[in-house]
Every structure is written in structure tokens, then in C-alpha cells.
């Protein structure tokens, strides 16, 4: 006979204010099989859990329903309590009367009715629960970090520093990400390369880190502790082990006028190139779309120049490598929005309207102008620069709805850098608000205004056009309520920070979630900000949301801590919620084999005694199955059942409603 204990939690006022718990207890007590039913302010508290345990022991309960919050919140808590009282932890069910009921309804009477139904339905389920035992699986204590920007580098260094192996995959020819393009960094104005390069070098030299540049993650299979990642190493056409980085080939390459991506098109590169001087690894790649040999079949000057035999190999092919890893850190960063969509700013039409990132290159000592701020059109030094903040951000009609978070700060930085380099220059900044929350940040923007003469104008720009070599910027100063017109020599747009163009597609490939924009979703915005909803996959840096360097680095170290926590054990206990197939009824369509997102299902032959094939059926590998239930819903002949969520349990749950 079932003896079920039901424990109704008030969750302070969260539930009790909207659900008549006394009534709920009364009604549920009358339900067949319910042995005890009690209510309490906080069942998750120590005394609350004690009450549950005592009730199990004293009444010999065979199952427990806690009517409270979501199982995501406290299922583990109460499973533990059950286990401590000698009950199989899987004989617990959570009836979610908070998120599914009290929080979303305002009519107390109806909410109470619903809470009663939800609770009864879980009582019916728990009556059909079975004792289950957790599954133990080994953990591969090696991490894969995807994206070699500052976030990925930091995460890799932290994990490697704790003695675990790391595979760091970067798709560009060099690691470094956007930070390598920056001139000086707020809020301290230290040179970006000077603080980044040592980290890059440390990463590539670290005995525990394998850096794979110019490589992409093609496929990820498996699950927490046991992922398999297939990586495509794109052919550089230069042997990374032989090349000494002398750069002779680059010197001699006749194709010299390729707009450099790294320099935002403000400088040129050759067909065989490294993106920037401090590239790590310092090994060039050939851009086959530009190389004369790949276009016309003639040239190979680089190969002739190269002193090392067979170092440049025009026949090189992409290669694939597979790695087993236990955890994955996604650090794929961001892109800046294409600002041509703002016709009124004239980006793309006027050469001297540039993005903030281009400005970083102009201000950078290693940049195309050696750090002198010059107009791209005629090379003159500008006397007045207009900066336009929120050029795309906080603009639901055309751009993105969110705040890109870093642009207020870098615009202040740009004004300062300009003032330091050109003492007579004027910076006029159109802004909506100045958002400078962060250690030393408000002080930084104040400094820009008070010491470096940045002139802030609150308002938006409505029109921009060229006249007599000047860029005429028209807008409204909304504080004065007056139109303004400024003749500028250069305009810098603080473009929105957006996800990588392939962010969604990539998320699908590795199996993580993303928001409406394509930024990757954390498991819980407040309490689990560096984990994804997929166990074993973590996030850091600007791929999650626009972030500056301090935040990216902090999150990277946090992700590393999570990975190291996982790696502190040799075995991982997994939920025994796994699928199994009924041989008798399986029709062998193998749709489930294809549908299973974890490749957990194989084909198995059933033979008669003489070894003759009778039929083939699907077979779930419990070590790989994640209990997602996809196969169950797919199977037309209803031949798959999921432990913990069996057909009988679900059916009883539904019928109780």
C-alpha cells in the first residue's frame, strides 16, 4: 500500500499569499494513499527538512511529494532529505505550486484549486515511482575552450594552472580576439597589447595547453564529463611546426593591397600574412582568395623565398582531430554591428565616418598610422571629432534594444586619447546617458570631461552630410531643447556590440541555448551565470552579453573554477533517468537513433538460436542517455520508456487532473 507524505510549503509569502494552503492540506489529506499532509513556512529550511525526515521514519512513508517550488530549485535538497531518512531519493516528487501557480495567478480561489490539482497529480505519479540507483560515469579531466580572446585565454590559463589539460581552439590565425586590436584600455589607459601579449605567450607556451589556431569545432557529441569534440584544422599552407616566423615570405609576396581585417580596412596586408605583428603563433597563413598562385596557378614566390624546406605547402589539406574532453568553455566573443544600416550617419558613404574599433586602430601605436589620429580620406589630422554614442544600441526600431555597456566608457577613452595626442582638438560627444558604473569608471568619464575637455551633448544625431571637406553633423541638444550643427573632421560611431554572425548556428552545433539576439544563455541569470543549461558547458566573455575586459576575465576565471570543481572528482554520479526499448514491440524504424541528440541509441540484432537474424531493434546505451525523452516522444509504436517518467507515471499524472 502506498503511504505518501505531502508537504505543502508557504515559501514565506510567495505561495501562501496566493494559495489557501490550509485548504490545500485539507483536500490533499483526503486523497487516497496520502498518509500525512503538513504545511510549513519554509520546508527547505533545516527544521522543514527535519519535519519531512521525521514523517518518513515515523509513518514508514513509501513516497514523498513536496508542494513548493520548481524541481530545478530544490529537488536535490529534498532527495537528499529522503535519502537521509532511508527512503530511495527517487521516491520524491516536487509539485510546483510556485512558478506554475502562485506566481502566475492572481485569483486566490482558482489558484488554490489549481494547486490542489497539481499536488494530487504528483501524488498519483509518486505512487508509481520506482526505486532507482544513480549511474556512475568517469570524468575525462581535460577541457575544451572555444574562442581565444581574452576570456578564452584566461579560462585556459586558470584551468591549465591547476594542472589540467586544455585544448584552446581559435578560428582566426592568431589568438587574442578583439583585445589585440585595442589601443589603450579604460579605466586605466594601459596599453592593450602590453597586457595581452604576455598572456597570449603564456598560453601557447604552457605545457598543459594545446592551442589550435585557424581551427573550428565541427561537432560536439556526448555529455558532461565525456564529450567528444571533432576539430577541423584549416590548412594554413604553412607548416606550423617548421615555420620560424621570420616573415620573409610576407615581405616578398607581390599581393600587397589586401585590406587588413585586423586594421578594420585602414591598412593593408599581403596574401600570405599574419594578422598582426605580435600574432601568436607567429606563423603566417595564405589567403587563398587573394593569392596569385591559387588564382592563376603561378607565383609561389613565398615558397621560393622561404629558407626552410617544405615549410610552405600549396597542397596542404584541412585535417580533423578528435578530442575527448570532460568540460567545454565557450568564449566566442562578439562582433560590432554593421552601421551602414544607419543611413543618417553616412557610414560606408563617407570615409571619415568610422567605427570605434577603427578609432582604436588609429590610436594604436602599432596601427596603420603609428598612433597618429588621421583622417582615412586625406590623412589630415582632424581638429574636431564628433562621437556618436548608442549608434545602434538602445534603439528597438533599427538597431538593438539592449545597452552595449562598454561604449560609454570607450568613447570617453577615445576623447581622452585624442586630447592626449592632439592638444587643440575638440571632442564633441552625442550621448543619451552616460553609463559608467564600475570600479573607477565614473571617475574616468569625469576625467575625460574635466581634464581632457570632452564636450558632452545630450541628444541624437538626425543627419550627417559632407560640405567643403567637412562633415556637417546635425542634431538636437535635448537639454537645451535646441538644434545643433557641428562641422566635424571625423565622426566616430559607438556601434552596438552584437553576437558573432554565426552564434546561433554554432550554439545549435554544440547544443546550448541563446537569447533573442544570439547571445548565449546562462543557466540562471543570477545564481548560475557562467553555466549553460547543458551540463558541462560553461560560458565566459562577450559571447554571453556585451562585456568589458575586467568582466570577461572575471567570468573566465569563474568558468574555470566550475570546470575545476567538476574535475575534482574521478567519477560523476548521473541521474538514473534513462530510456529503455521494448524489444517485443520495437518496429526497427530507427527514427529514434537519428532523433537522439546524444547519439545514445544503437541498432541491435536479435537472432534465433541458430544465429539467424529475426529482427533488428533499437538499443539505448544508458551511459550515454541523458534522459531527455526525445526518443520517447518520437517512437510511434510507443516502445520506449523513460525511468522516472514512465508512461504509467505520466498517464496517472494526467488522469489525476
Amino acid at each position: 500500500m502506498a503511504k505518501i507524505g505531502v508537504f505543502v510549503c508557504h515559501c514565506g509569502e510567495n505561495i501562501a499569499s496566493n494559495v489557501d494552503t490550509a485548504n490545500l492540506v485539507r483536500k490533499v489529506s483526503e486523497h487516497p494513499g496520502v498518509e500525512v499532509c503538513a504545511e510549513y513556512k519554509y520546508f527547505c529550511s533545516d527544521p522543514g527538512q527535519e519535519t519531512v525526515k521525521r514523517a518518513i521514519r515515523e509513518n514508514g512513508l513509501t513516497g514523498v511529494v513536496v508542494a513548493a517550488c520548481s524541481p530545478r530549485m530544490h529537488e536535490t535538497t529534498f532527495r537528499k532529505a529522503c535519502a537521509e531518512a532511508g527512503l530511495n531519493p527517487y521516491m520524491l516528487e516536487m509539485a510546483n505550486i510556485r512558478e506554475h501557480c502562485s506566481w502566475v495567478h492572481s485569483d486566490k480561489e482558482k489558484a488554490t484549486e489549481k494547486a490542489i490539482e497539481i499536488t494530487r497529480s504528483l501524488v498519483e505519479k509518486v505512487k508509481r515511482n520506482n526505486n532507482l540507483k544513480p549511474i556512475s560515469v568517469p570524468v575525462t579531466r581535460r577541457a575544451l575552450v572555444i574562442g581565444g580572446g581574452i576570456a578564452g585565454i584566461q579560462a585556459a590559463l586558470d584551468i591549465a594552472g591547476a594542472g589540467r589539460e586544455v585544448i584552446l581552439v581559435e578560428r582566426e590565425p592568431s589568438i587574442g580576439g578583439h583585445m589585440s586590436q585595442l589601443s589603450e584600455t579604460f579605466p586605466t589607459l594601459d596599453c592593450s597589447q602590453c597586457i595581452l601579449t604576455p598572456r597570449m605567450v603564456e598560453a601557447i607556451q604552457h605545457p598543459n595547453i594545446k592551442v589550435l589556431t585557424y581551427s573550428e569545432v565541427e561537432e560536439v557529441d556526448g555529455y558532461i564529463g565525456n564529450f567528444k569534440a571533432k576539430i577541423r584544422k584549416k590548412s594554413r599552407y604553412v607548416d606550423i611546426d617548421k615555420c620560424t616566423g621570420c616573415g620573409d615570405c610576407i615581405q616578398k609576396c607581390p599581393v600587397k593591397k589586401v585590406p587588413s581585417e585586423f586594421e578594420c580596412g585602414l591598412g593593408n596586408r599581403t596574401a600570405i600574412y599574419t594578422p598582426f605583428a605580435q600574432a601568436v603563433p607567429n606563423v603566417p597563413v595564405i589567403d587563398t582568395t587573394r593569392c596569385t598562385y591559387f588564382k592563376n596557378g603561378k607565383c609561389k614566390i613565398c615558397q621560393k623565398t622561404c629558407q626552410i624546406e617544405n615549410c610552405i605547402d600549396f597542397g596542404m589539406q584541412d585535417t580533423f582531430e578528435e578530442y575527448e574532453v570532460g568540460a567545454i568553455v565557450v568564449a566566442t566573443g562578439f562582433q560590432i554591428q554593421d552601421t551602414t544600416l544607419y543611413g543618417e550617419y553616412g557610414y560606408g558613404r563617407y570615409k571619415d565616418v568610422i567605427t570605434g574599433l577603427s578609432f582604436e586602430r588609429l590610436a594604436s601605436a602599432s596601427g596603420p598610422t603609428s598612433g597618429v589620429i588621421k583622417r582615412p580620406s586625406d590623412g589630415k589630422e582632424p581638429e574636431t571629432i564628433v562621437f556618436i554614442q548608442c549608434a545602434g544600441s538602445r534603439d528597438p526600431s533599427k538597431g538593438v534594444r539592449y545597452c552595449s555597456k562598454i561604449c560609454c566608457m570607450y568613447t570617453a577613452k577615445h576623447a581622452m586619447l585624442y586630447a592626449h595626442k592632439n592638444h587643440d582638438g575638440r571632442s564633441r560627444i552625442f550621448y543619451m546617458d552616460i553609463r559608467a558604473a564600475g570600479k573607477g569608471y565614473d571617475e574616468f568619464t569625469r576625467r575625460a570631461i574635466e581634464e581632457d575637455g570632452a564636450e558632452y551633448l545630450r541628444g541624437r544625431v538626425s543627419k550627417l552630410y559632407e560640405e567643403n571637406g567637412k562633415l556637417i553633423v546635425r542634431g538636437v541638444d535635448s537639454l537645451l531643447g535646441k538644434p545643433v550643427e557641428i562641422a566635424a573632421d571625423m565622426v566616430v560611431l559607438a556601434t552596438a556590440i552584437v553576437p558573432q554572425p554565426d552564434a546561433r548556428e554554432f550554439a545549435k552545433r554544440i547544443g546550448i541555448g541563446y537569447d533573442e539576439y544570439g547571445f548565449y544563455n546562462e543557466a540562471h541569470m543570477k545564481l548560475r551565470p557562467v553555466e549553460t543549461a547543458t551540463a558541462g558547458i560553461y560560458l565566459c566573455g562577450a559571447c554571453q552579453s556585451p562585456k568589458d575586459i575586467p568582466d570577461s576575465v572575471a567570468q573566465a576565471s569563474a568558468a574555470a573554477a566550475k570546470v575545476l570543481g567538476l574535475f575534482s572528482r574521478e567519477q560523476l554520479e548521473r541521474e538514473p533517468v534513462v530510456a529503455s526499448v521494448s524489444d517485443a514491440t520495437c518496429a526497427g524504424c530507427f527514427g529514434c537513433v537519428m532523433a537522439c541528440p546524444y547519439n545514445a541509441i544503437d541498432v541491435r540484432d536479435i537472432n534465433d538460436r541458430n544465429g539467424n537474424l529475426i529482427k533488428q531493434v533499437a538499443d539505448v546505451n544508458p551511459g550515454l542517455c541523458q534522459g531527455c525523452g526525445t526518443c520517447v516522444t518520437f517512437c510511434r509504436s510507443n516502445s520506449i520508456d523513460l525511468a522516472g517518467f514512465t508512461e504509467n507515471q505520466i498517464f496517472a499524472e494526467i488522469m489525476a487532473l
Partner: protein
Amino acid sequence: MGIQEQYRSEAAELLSSGEVKLVIGFGAGSTADRRRPLFARTPEESEKLVLDQNCIANLTTYLVAGGLLTDGKKVAVFLKPDGIRSLNILIAESQVKAEQVVIFGFAIENNEVTPLEGRSISDFAKLGEKLRTATPPPSVQEEAERLEAMGSSGRFEYWKEQFSKCIKCYACRQACPMCYCRRCIVDVNQPQWVSTSSHTLGNFEWNLVRAFHLAGRCAACGACDRACPVNIPLRLINYRMGKEVKEAFDYFAGESSDQNPVLASFRQDDPETFIL
């Protein structure tokens, strides 16, 4: 020699040489214009094969009969284009091995029977493309458009009335080559997901399950429709599901034998309009 005679003699050869163990074709039926399936196991039996404009049934249904193909031996079967389409689906769903089937292909146009070139499924690769772009029978399309014009509540009433006739005989299921499960979900009684009695709810449950289980798998052969003793226009349901699948996933069931079943497979650019 007419096509009937030609196929008869080829069938006899295949059987006498032992190349195939069975020929599934058509034989005389209970009335002059009806044909029933004929299973020829000897060259003599193949003499009774009939092929004319009345041979409309989709014989692939018999290929998936329990255990017929487990011995690895070959079977020959008479198939119209829709039958070839369902054979493609059955191969894609691992029910039939391509190399085990010899096809006697034929088409019926304007009451004329013409042979189709090729004997193995790979010979019919072009046919898939042709069928994909072919327009469905105007009668079905007209009916479908009439339904579409009714609006959702009108359609609901329509189907309620139609389904109320259903006697749960499952003739539609027996006739359908895609309903090859050894145990159909409607026969599951632990728990009893689909109610067995013939009241409106139970009838709706069954017919909706049937519709969904055939989404992206129906070859539009019309076997179910013809089998239904109470004339429920099942073709319209199948047509609508086929259209949905084509629009959402650009998928045409049975176009080729190496298609990935649409509802079991996943493409990165699948629409996900229902996920917020």
C-alpha cells in the same frame, strides 16, 4: 507482346531461376473491375498475374508483413509511382533493404498501362524529382481548398462530423504500408492512451494520432481512403500534413530512399517559430 505478358514471363523467369522467392502482383478480383493481390511462388502461379488499369492498390504493404524479408531473399513487386514512393520511405525507415526488391514498375494514365523502365529502386531516382513537382490530383486540391476556406471552426465541425462515423475498424491502418508497427499505439492498453470506444473523443484521438504518425511519411497512394468503409476523406488529412511538412521543412516524403525521416532528423536551419 503486351506489358502484362511481358511482366508475366519475366516473373516466371525470376521464379524459376530462383532469383526471387515471391512475386507480389495483381490477380483477378471478385468483380470484373476489381483486382486482388496475387502472391506467386512458382512460375505456374505467375501465369495468373493481371496488369490493367484496375491495378491501383499499393502492394508495398505486403513487403512489410512480419518476417517476409528477414531471410535476405529477394521479392518482386508490381508498383505504380506512388508505390515506388512508399518503397523509398520504407527503405529510408529500415523496413526494407533496397537490394531485396525487384520492381515491376508501371503507370496508369488515361486508362492506359505503360511500363516504367528499371527494376531496382536506384533506377527510379529521377522519378522522385518528378513526383515532387507534380501537381496533386485536382479533385483533392479542390476539396482541400474548400476546407481551407471554411476557417478553423468550420473545419472543426466538418471533421467532427466525419470522425463521428469512424467505427475504429483500423482498415485504414491495415491498408497503409507505413503502418508497419508490430504493435500500434492504439493497441497499447497499459496505459490506455487512445480510448478504444467509438465516441467522438476516441475517434478524434485515433484519427489525429494517425495523421501525425503519417506526417512526412505518406506517399499519397490513397490506400487508407479506399479502405475506409464509412468514407471518411482521409486523403484530405494526408494532403494537409504533406503540405505542412513541405512548407516547413521543404520535404517531400519518398522522394528518394536515402532521405532522412523528416521528424526524426534535425537541420540547423529548421524553422523554430514556436520557440520563444
